């Protein structure tokens, strides 16, 4: 069967690959958006935390024989804790300074982390063996759906949805939104805003770590994996609108799809299409598709 002269199988395979990329874009840009909302810091170390998530899964398997499912829980928690410590000890010192300092500081942190991993593990990719439950897949008739990829999409949708629900529908979420909108007043109501900030940074980077664990079995694990990905994620965040939670999630999946479809119709453009969209969005809606226009 052909669609616009393209075999359905090729099209659906690329759409699936696009959705998988989108799943990662969504989790990562969600974390960036939450952190930016409350801390006003563009977390340039985000890619490094993602990479640490993948290495975390690998090391836990190698040294403690920790399986993938447990790693999905333990590794993000550990990275989240590390994030809390970093916020307390380092980021907290620069809140009174210009936003630029936050960018430079987190960028530097990311470089240091990636450098340490490169020293230790070299620059080549390391394999992570696929957990048994994710081997094989489903024949959908028009295409084969590998279980590992289906899982990545499901896990990403679930994590994004739960995060969105907590932020938009719970009391804790209302505190977070309040602290994002008017930090001083929120503090003057007796809410512990500094603690919220610490937890938010921890949670944001834990999301990156979670994405890293998800990536371990399907991409090669190497110290540079986050740096390559995060550039695209920044474009996603700019397109969606800084600080918009649902915008980050939807834009993530959407742009993954756009990339996949572009790969079918114009393969050479597939790596640049997101940046072209970013340029157009910046011209037409500078605050992003879902951001509040000034």
């Amino acid at each position, binding site marked *: 069967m052909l669609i616009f002269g393209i075999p359905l199988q090729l099209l659906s395979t690329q759409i699936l690959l696009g959705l998988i990329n989108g799943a990662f874009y969504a989790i990562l840009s969600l974390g960036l958006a939450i952190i930016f909302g409350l801390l006003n810091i563009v977390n340039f170390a985000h890619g490094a935390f993602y990479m640490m998530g993948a290495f975390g899964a690998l090391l836990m398997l190698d040294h403690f024989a920790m399986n993938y499912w447990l790693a999905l829980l333990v590794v993000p928690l550990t990275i989240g804790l590390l994030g809390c410590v970093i916020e307390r000890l380092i980021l907290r010192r620069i809140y009174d300074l210009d936003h630029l300092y936050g960018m430079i500081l987190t960028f530097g942190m990311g470089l240091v982390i990636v450098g340490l991993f490169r020293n230790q593990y070299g620059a080549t990719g390391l394999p992570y063996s696929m957990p048994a439950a994710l081997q094989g897949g489903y024949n959908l008739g028009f295409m084969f759906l590998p279980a590992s990829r289906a899982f990545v999409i499901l896990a990403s949708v679930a994590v994004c949805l739960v995060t969105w629900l907590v932020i938009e529908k719970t009391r804790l979420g209302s505190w977070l*939104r*309040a602290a994002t*909108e008017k930090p001083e*007043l929120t*503090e*003057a109501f*007796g*809410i*512990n*805003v500094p603690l919220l900030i610490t937890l938010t940074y921890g949670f944001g980077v834990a999301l990156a770590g979670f994405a890293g664990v998800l990536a371990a079995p399907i991409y090669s694990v190497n110290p540079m994996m986050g740096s390559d990905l995060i550039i695209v994620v920044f474009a996603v965040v700019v397109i969606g609108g800084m600080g918009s939670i649902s915008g980050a999630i939807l834009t993530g999946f959407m742009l993954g799809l756009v990339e996949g479809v572009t790969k079918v119709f114009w393969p050479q453009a597939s790596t640049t299409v997101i940046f072209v969209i970013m340029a157009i969005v910046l011209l037409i809606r500078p605050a992003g598709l879902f951001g509040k226009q000034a």
Partner: protein
Amino acid sequence: MPISGCPMADRLSQNPHFQVTDLEAWYGESHVLHRVSFDIREGEVVTLLGRNGAGKSTTLKSIMGMIKRRQGSVRLREKELGRASSRAIARAGIAFCPEDRGIYSSLTVEENLMLPPVVASGGMSVAEIHTLFPNLAERRRSQGTRLSGGEQQMLAIGRILRTGARLLLLDEPTEGLAPVIVQQIGATIRQLKERGYTVLLVEQNFHFAASVADRHYVMDHGQVVDMIPGPEIADNMAKLSTYLGV
């Protein structure tokens, strides 16, 4: 401080409940409060009057710990709060209703109402607040900033009544509101007084201030320049007019 002639005198304790002494505040290098001192007895409604830029809002914000560079003593009962964080000050039982009302646009009316944590027992229930301000019940699902100005003011007052704080700092609650709403807010403040709340009210509208308050402090150029007991306000009209520049 003479309190004879005040109808509430018997019910007021004699010791200052809340005392501000030599409060100073700065915005950057600009020194805007100079040795501001005043006190309030428990259950009293006291206003801060003064022209634009006199330092009224800055006084409230300094009490709340929201001005970074400040100095001096702020005491609630025996507790010294002059150097406390604004969170600790809120937890000590002081609640603040800011001049811009501080309604959150990312929160619904109900979420705005439920936002401030309860800091002491004895606060009003949501049902009581809804009885006081029925509009808030009707519009509980709306975005906070979709409310009219008057409704936003009711929300801003209503949400601090839940917390159990007994000292309320209200910054110009009648500013820019229609006369009926101003009356409703006046009635609310009188009700709060009956319930034993202590209120520090910033006002420009001294007719309104005179209708609700026991005493008035007058501020000018970042200083407290006078204190006028409520019943004597009529005799001090001329003086007040010069202070307020009206």
